[in-house]
């Protein structure tokens, strides 16, 4: 059973120096696929851009590897190789020679690490325990984050997000996933009720790095979410322009719909990256609370951020969705990363979402200050029941969730998981239009 009770009205919080930090270009040199996955996990946790991935077992001559390293213009090189690490260390020596070199991190078992560090003498390599251990991973993440931090007293946004998720999960004693989408980066942080957590960040965003979303996810994956007929070349021009005007805001419903589409794919991209490193996404999708921060939390209508996380995260249970109040949660998270902070007062409850399997229709009873509303939900439907005051949700007579005041109400999502969009525009656009209309997501286009 999910309850949003305990989340109250926002209060003022102190300003903090929160920054996404200096982008760090990270080259990953791994021994095999498992070590490469571990290294990618470190990159995700530290919000580093992976500019090169090489495996010792992947072939290629010493010169080809060195040339790839040189061309990658990395700020840091992570060698995560038990066997084959000596050859990778040689590639680093050849790539940089006597010239200025990036930070070299060597994460390998003891003997291999000693050998590689000795081979790289003169490059000031930093030996760290392998990233397969929590200690080793944390140490690697801390070193890469230190590169991104512009000054000692600056707070990194992703670090603050992770701390906020942990603090909020402990304060509410419920598992939680926090979704932060910004101009330059997207962060997902999961925390179990006991505070065990992990975070993943990538430099894909809805502003300066919007073009990366298109490059990595594909233009069609972004276009499929736009509930208007827009051709690929025109969409690409808009995304590229948006990337070069990092602080631009959408002035039309179409631009807002494009921004929402990019945000969905930002979240999907980080999820896919997490999954590729072997992380099980089921607990994340079943988290009791979903928190939205960043640009989506500030969109004009709350249903816009709800719709975006619903589509991208594809949650599978009954969830409370809350949103940040003008980055107050992020600032509280920044304080929590170096001490303690009251995070409960920084978010606004938006909706209760019940993701239901679409096998058959079912009865939903939503009770609020105005009384009880009975709704029959059919397969594939997306239904919003607006509420006022305290809310209680029953499905087929069973109490599923309660909440205090909600901005929006109760949303029943019977579209099924995984959410499948029709490939053809003629079928996809009506489906999207139906869903956006059901939640009143977008304003009407001006005539």
């Amino acid at each position: 059973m999910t309850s949003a009770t305990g989340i109250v009205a926002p209060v003022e919080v102190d300003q903090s120096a929160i920054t996404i930090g200096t982008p760090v270009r990270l080259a990953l040199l791994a021994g095999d696929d498992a070590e490469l996955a571990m290294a990618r996990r470190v990159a995700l946790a530290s919000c580093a851009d992976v500019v090169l991935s090489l495996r010792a077992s992947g072939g290629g001559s010493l010169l080809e590897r060195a040339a790839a390293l040189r061309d990658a213009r990395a700020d840091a090189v992570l060698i995560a190789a038990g066997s084959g690490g000596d050859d990778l260390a040689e590639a680093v020596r050849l790539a940089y020679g006597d010239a200025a070199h990036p930070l070299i991190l060597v994460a390998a078992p003891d003997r291999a690490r000693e050998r590689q560090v000795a081979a790289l003498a003169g490059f000031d390599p930093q030996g760290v325990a392998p990233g397969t251990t929590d200690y080793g991973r944390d140490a690697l993440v801390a070193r890469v984050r230190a590169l991104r931090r512009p000054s000692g007293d600056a707070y990194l946004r992703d670090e603050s997000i992770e701390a906020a998720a942990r603090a909020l999960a402990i304060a509410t004693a419920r598992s939680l996933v926090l979704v932060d989408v910004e101009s330059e980066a997207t962060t997902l942080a999961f925390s179990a009720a006991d505070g065990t957590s992990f975070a993943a960040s990538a430099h894909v965003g809805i502003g300066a790095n919007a073009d990366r979303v298109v490059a990595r996810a594909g233009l069609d994956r972004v276009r499929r979410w736009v509930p208007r007929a827009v051709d690929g070349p025109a969409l690409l021009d808009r995304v590229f322009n948006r990337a070069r005007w990092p602080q631009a805001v959408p002035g039309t419903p179409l631009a807002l719909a494009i921004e929402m589409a990019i945000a969905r794919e930002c979240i999907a991209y980080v999820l896919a990256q997490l999954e590729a490193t072997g992380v099980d996404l089921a607990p994340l999708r079943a988290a009791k609370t979903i928190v939205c921060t960043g640009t989506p939390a500030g969109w004009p209508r709350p249903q816009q951020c709800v719709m975006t996380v619903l589509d991208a995260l594809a949650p599978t249970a009954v969830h409370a969705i809350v949103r940040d109040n003008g980055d107050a949660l992020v600032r509280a998270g920044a304080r929590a990363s170096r001490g303690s902070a009251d995070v409960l007062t920084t978010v606004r409850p938006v909706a209760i979402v019940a993701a239901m399997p679409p096998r058959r229709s079912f009865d939903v009873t939503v009770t609020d200050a105005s009384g009880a509303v009975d709704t029959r939900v059919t397969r594939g439907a997306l239904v919003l029941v607006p509420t006022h005051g305290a809310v209680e949700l029953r499905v087929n007579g069973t109490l599923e969730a309660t909440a205090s005041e909600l901005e929006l109400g109760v949303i029943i999502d019977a579209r099924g998981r995984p959410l499948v969009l029709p490939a053809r525009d003629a079928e996809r656009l009506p489906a999207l239009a139906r869903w956006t209309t059901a939640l009143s997501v977008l304003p009407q286009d001006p005539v």
Partner: protein
Amino acid sequence: MGWRFGESTVVHPLPIGVSRRAGEGEAVLAGDAIATGTIYGTPVRLSGARRLGLAPQDLARVMRVAPGAEVERGAILARTGRRFARAVTAPFDGRIAHIRADGDIELAPIVDRWVVRAVIDGTVTSTSDLEVVVAGEAWCLQGVAAYGPDAIGDLALLADGPSDEIVPSRIDVTQRDRILVGGGRSGPEAIARAHACGVAAVVAGAVPAAGLRAIFGDDVSAHGQVLRGDAPTVLCLAGFGTSALPESLYSPLRVFAGSRAAIHTASARLFVFAASEAAAIPATSPSLALSTDWGAVRALDGRVTIEPDVRFASEVLASGVATEAGPVPATNVLPVGAAR
């Protein structure tokens, strides 16, 4: 910031295999070779210190040729002993690419040579195996994004006005090695034709992003793409899709037509090597306004009027800047050359 005359610094990254590079303080012109090197084939690992019975750190003492040297087949690379000599010889013509930490020698055949050319007239301020930095004075215009290899050539104006499009039919081989300047837009057809005719580069207000993908591949981004080798060079001055250049950006180009110029792709800058008094620059910097639906870029010359608290059609509440087509969000307006 639009056009400016002053000192600019250009970093020229170097590939692996440097043979020669310009020294610090050396004066260079745009187009001069500032570094040369070799492109290696597949290297062969030769047993070095182990074969000679030495510790790896002692190998340097018995090397007969320096790392990086070109050698012929049979050449002695390292030798030790007198009466019972041991030696490492080159099994083929090539170059010593690397000495490993364990004392082995990587010998690689030479399959080609590369040259890196200066993109600005000036003086070499620093040099290493990684890069050569040149600083010099020139007219400079910061673009939004550039694609392809660096380019050097004489400027040639191909459009009749700041909003005109480069028409493919106006491009021919007489424009070989020139940097063609269009007005508001250049399509992929014009860029491809220009490249086929040997044109050094195309400069335009905007290029359709889909056109850039057709030319440079699906990985192309809004932040530019540096390439080596045979590829077109394109500089976008305003954005993507359609645009018109501000008159204050376009009018100096009329004056600069025929001057030597260069494009540094990594930093998306156009350099023109003309006298500092060659063009007059207006006091107010022009701006570029991204339309409310992000589909086009509009030039704003001179001062702009801010309207507070405009409710846009998306329901976003923000300060607006008045334009002929209605207000656009103030955050959608940036000065030309602004840091992005």
